[in-house]
């Protein structure tokens, strides 16, 4: 192996250069390197703020939409009034319901109210009832309809149809805000 003679002056320069390089590495690690982390955090902060703001605005829009969409729904506390109204409409339409069974269950942030009705009436009284129910301010959906006519009875009667209805609506769990 060839022997490389390093002179005193060269040794000193090597030492100075090594000290400079060592300090540069140290300062890079202490002064510059943390900045990259800070920049990354600041960039993420900016992006995060943008996303949060967009999200917040979307939520505000969603809230308005939901308020509009929920406006035809009754609240849980209005359940009995709703049942009373259904009963009233049925009476006015000349349908005699023997049973009216309400059932509630939670459903996607709402409370589903299912009303099973069993009674007698004519086709036209059923039609009238359905028309009236659909006109009510509270959104009520006709889930199932079943009507049975006794074709073998000798006399036409007003209550010739045996009617089974399942009505369904969603109730807001909170008290409806009034202006």
């Amino acid at each position, binding site marked *: 192996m060839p022997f490389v003679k390093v002179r*005193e*002056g*060269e040794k*000193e320069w090597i030492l*100075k250069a090594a*000290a*400079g390089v060592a*300090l*540069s590495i140290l*300062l*890079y690690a202490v*002064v*510059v390197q943390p*900045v990259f982390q800070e*920049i990354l955090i*600041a*960039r993420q*902060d*900016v992006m*995060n*703020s*943008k*996303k*949060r*703001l967009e*999200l*917040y605005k*979307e*939520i*505000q829009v*969603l*809230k308005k939409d*939901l308020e509009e*969409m*929920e406006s035809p729904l009754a609240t849980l506390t209005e359940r009995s009034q709703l049942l009373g109204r259904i009963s009233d409409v049925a009476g006015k339409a000349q349908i005699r319901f023997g049973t009216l069974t309400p059932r509630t269950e939670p*459903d*996607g*942030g*709402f409370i589903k109210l299912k009303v099973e009705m069993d009674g007698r009436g004519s*086709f036209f009284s*059923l*039609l009238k009832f*359905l028309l009236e*129910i*659909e006109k009510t301010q509270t*959104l009520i*959906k*006709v*889930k*199932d*309809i*079943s*009507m*049975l*006519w*006794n*074709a073998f009875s000798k006399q036409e009667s007003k209550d010739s149809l045996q009617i*089974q209805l*399942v009505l369904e609506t*969603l109730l807001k769990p909170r008290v409806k805000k009034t202006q």
Partner: protein
Amino acid sequence: MAKGVGVYVGRNEVIAVSATRTGTGPQITSFAIESIGPEASPESPHDRGIHRIRRATPEVQAIFKVLAKIKAPGAFVNVAVSPLQVVTRNFIMPMVPKKDEAGAVRNEASRYVPFKITDSVLDYHSYPTHKNVLSVTVTAIRREILDEYLRSMRSAFAKVLVVEPVYNAASRVFAALNMVGKVQAHGFVILQSDGNVNVTLASKGIVYLSRDFLLSGKLEEDKTRFYGELKASMEYFYKLTGGESIEQIFLSGVGDLKIWVEHLEHAFNYKVRFDVANLPRAKNLPPEALHELLVAFGLALRSLGYRSSLGNIQLLPKEERRSDPAQFLRFLALEFFLILIFFVMVRVVIFQPLLMRLKDQKEAIIGPAEREFPAFVSRSMEDLLGEKGLMNERRERLDAFFNEKISGAAFMMALGQGLPKSISLDYVSIEDVAGSESSQSRKRKKRLNMRGICYLGNAEKETETIGAWLKALGAKKIMTDNFTEIRVEEIKREKFRNREITRFRGMGE
């Protein structure tokens, strides 16, 4: 306190002096003189590299010992070697541009220096005397001799800062003691233990002559020789300078200098003043021995910032020079400062504005939003995502609820309208049935069931009527919206009150 160490390596002895600068002037703090001889050996066996030193040359051992004695082993030292190894010549040459001066001086010096310039290390001091004329004093040493000395010094763990001629060291001492005026034509005579006498004559800071002669050791014979050599040197100086006479000569070195002063003053008829250095006293040192330390003392003074009146000649090539510790530390401090400034600038100039811009961007987003929606700032991303998820779920549920809605009244009307008189329905149901398991949405389906009879008295006509009615029913919009088709599921003939009727079952899905 700053300390300087000077080492003079003569032919017979090595002299080391450690000096400091005090309020009253430079002081010798310690010194050592060691003969160079084959019997010499290191005295402190615990010192590092002791085995190496024992096997080293007598010079190395002597250097090691003197440094150990002055408690400066491995110190940064200024060195002078025996003037017999060094050649000093003065000549004049035409002035050349500064950048070409070194090369021109080397070329010119090759005419005066008695060995090959390429094999030597030289330094020079130039001084413009007349218009376009340079007076140049060149001092040179053969490279192999210098290398030998450097090897010896480094083998003894000394860190050599400078190698300079003895006249520089001597003039530094006299300058430090305020004994020499710069404009005065003066000389330095240094007597050495080997009988060598170095005579240096200078004027206005220019060394015109530096030569050596040997004394025999016989006083009467030497007196005559001393006078003769000195007189010849002064005459030569007179010629070189164009008529300047030496007014003062400083004597130093080994021996009884007072005798020589008296003799020479008398011999020169008191036209030339001879002086010895008024050196500061060191402990345990007789006054006559002080003068022996003069060269080493002058070398030590160099590290304390004292300047020689005869320029700054260095016989150490640039590549072999080391900075003294203070200079080295100053360089490192400057280097560190510049690197620190660089990195701070990089941070402040490049990265800080970027960081500020990003912070401003964030503020530009957050600020107006905070004013518009005060609650926004306190809401975290997770919180918002959670709320959005819940709201989406509610919305999807509502959408599904609204989309599934069928108008029951419209359906009943569609069923009733267009029902032929021959058909009588005795059962109708519309109900939700669960979708198939494989269905992605598992959306609930509607199912329509109808049962009825048809009487026309003709089976074929009855069947045809039932089919036509179901087809017409299935074509109605409300039916097409909810059922893909309405079909006859079952059809049969039946006897009712002695009449044949057709009973059917229809289904829509």
